């Protein structure tokens, strides 16, 4: 399959991701923020597709855009919006946040400049049609332990959420 208009789509998706990221933190209305976040996640899924990782893209759409963000919206809609809008958008930790953001940005810039030696660009691109299979083999083979730990962590989170939400068990 020959890619079509790759640079154009890359800049489109990257731009969308950036714009939606900015919208997420600047919108006063939390629902608008959440919608912008969904847009950003979908654009990211597009970027994954361009990196020949369709499985990750599909999972991104199902889990983040379809599942988690719907729950986000669910909670936001139930919350009293008037009150949240009255609250200050940026709290006192903005200085710390700024430092962290600058540090992260510096890291990205560093990787961009020096990265060509760290991550060779001409690594072997896995064949598209067994991409999913490779992910599965890695997940259930090499990274089995980490995978199981993550699932255990999620189980604990589920139980914790049930305990907190349910008044009587």
């Amino acid at each position, binding site marked *: 399959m020959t890619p079509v208009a790759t640079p154009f789509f890359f800049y489109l998706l990257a731009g969308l991701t950036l714009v939606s990221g900015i919208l997420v933190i600047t919108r006063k209305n939390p629902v608008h923020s959440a919608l912008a976040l969904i847009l950003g996640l979908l654009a990211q899924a597009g970027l994954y597709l361009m990196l020949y990782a369709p499985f990750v893209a599909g999972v991104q759409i199902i889990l983040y*855009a*379809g599942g988690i963000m719907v729950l986000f*919206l*669910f909670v936001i809609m139930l919350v009293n919006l008037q009150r949240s809008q009255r609250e200050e958008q940026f709290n006192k930790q903005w200085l710390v946040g700024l430092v962290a953001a600058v540090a992260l940005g510096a890291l990205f810039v560093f990787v961009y400049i020096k990265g060509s030696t760290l991550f060779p660009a001409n690594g072997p691109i896995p064949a*598209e049609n067994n991409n999913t299979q490779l992910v599965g083999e890695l997940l259930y083979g090499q990274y089995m332990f980490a995978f199981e730990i993550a699932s255990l962590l999620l189980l604990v989170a589920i139980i914790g959420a049930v305990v907190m939400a349910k008044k009587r068990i």
Partner: protein
Amino acid sequence: MLDYITSYLSMNTTPGQAGNVFWVVVYIMVVFGGVSVAVMAMNWLERKALAHFQIRLGPMRVGPHGLLQPIADAVKLFTKEDIIPSEADKLVFWIAPLIILCASFTVYIVIPFGPTHAITDLNIGILFMLGVSSLSVLGVVMAGWASNSHYPLIGSLRSSAQMISYEIAMGMAVISAILMTSLNKTGTGTLSMIGIVQAQQQQQIWFVFKFFPLGFIALGIFAIAMIAETNRAPFDLPEAESELTAGFHTEYSGLRWSLFMLGEYAAMIAVSSIAVTLWLGGWLRPFPNTLTGETWDLVFSLLPGFSFLALAAFAFIGVVRMPKHPYFRIQTIGLAGFGAVLGLIGLVLFIPPVRDRIQDIFWFVAKVAVFMYLYIWYRATFPRYRFDQLMKVGWKVLLPIAIGVLILTAIMGVIV
């Protein structure tokens, strides 16, 4: 240019895989148009069939037997005043129906109407379908929230909870079908929609009969979950008209409302297509492996033409039975014309090159139509579930069964 266009015709793959932009565009247009027409036809059929369930006639005025009713409705809806409530969140209100529409139409990219009749074949096909179709819940939530009114809000809350719950059982049932695709010599399965159908051809069995009754139960779970996914009776709580007036689209009218309807029906056809692809052999004709040979091939390839001729015959019987009153003259002529068109299509389908290309699509559509009819049947028969009962069915009945089927399928796959 002409070479570029004709080069695809000799290829044995989907235009997306061939990288042929021209044919991709053509396929997209055809599928979009076809689905829109199918939605209109479904709309007419539902009203008609439901009416006959309920000892009514249904639409009879616009065109012979109300055949033009969907068009009249479309014209009415397009010319209606477009109302946005003053307290609504205008942007979100505006986007919501579009999201539903986009989500339900994007899914058609990977639906295989035949081995080459798909826009493209993604190797994560089924994952893509589930993912994109689950996005339509966003549209529902946004519509309910943006209307800034209580009934839509409750409707969208119900809808999001319901869709997320049933997606899980649905996913489990789908995984059990995908497991079955890996039962070949190489031991690698596939997520590709075309690959799944080809696996069924290879294994010489529709997955619904594989490891009977496991495949059958999985299809059952999927068939129930897909009704809940598309918010249809008896799981139509988000738009339960006797409780929430119209649920999440209470405040919508005119064109926007019709977009919701279009999206809903398109989604119904899409999920039915998933069921057909995964369990009922997709485009494969009945008994592709046992009833082989020249004669059987000929018999089955002639069926599409004959079924259209039968429909034409129905239309002509209707013409004969029309009252001989001048008032009905236009209707009679219209019905005769309709019958003639159907008959012509039937005759065209007898031409050998056409019938070889088309019969895949015919079988696929016929199987989907069975599911569409079931949708109508359920709606005529069942009362509506209550919200807690709906959740109970989803989490306590369907999910455990689906997980059980999944485990058993895996065990059977290892043993066999």
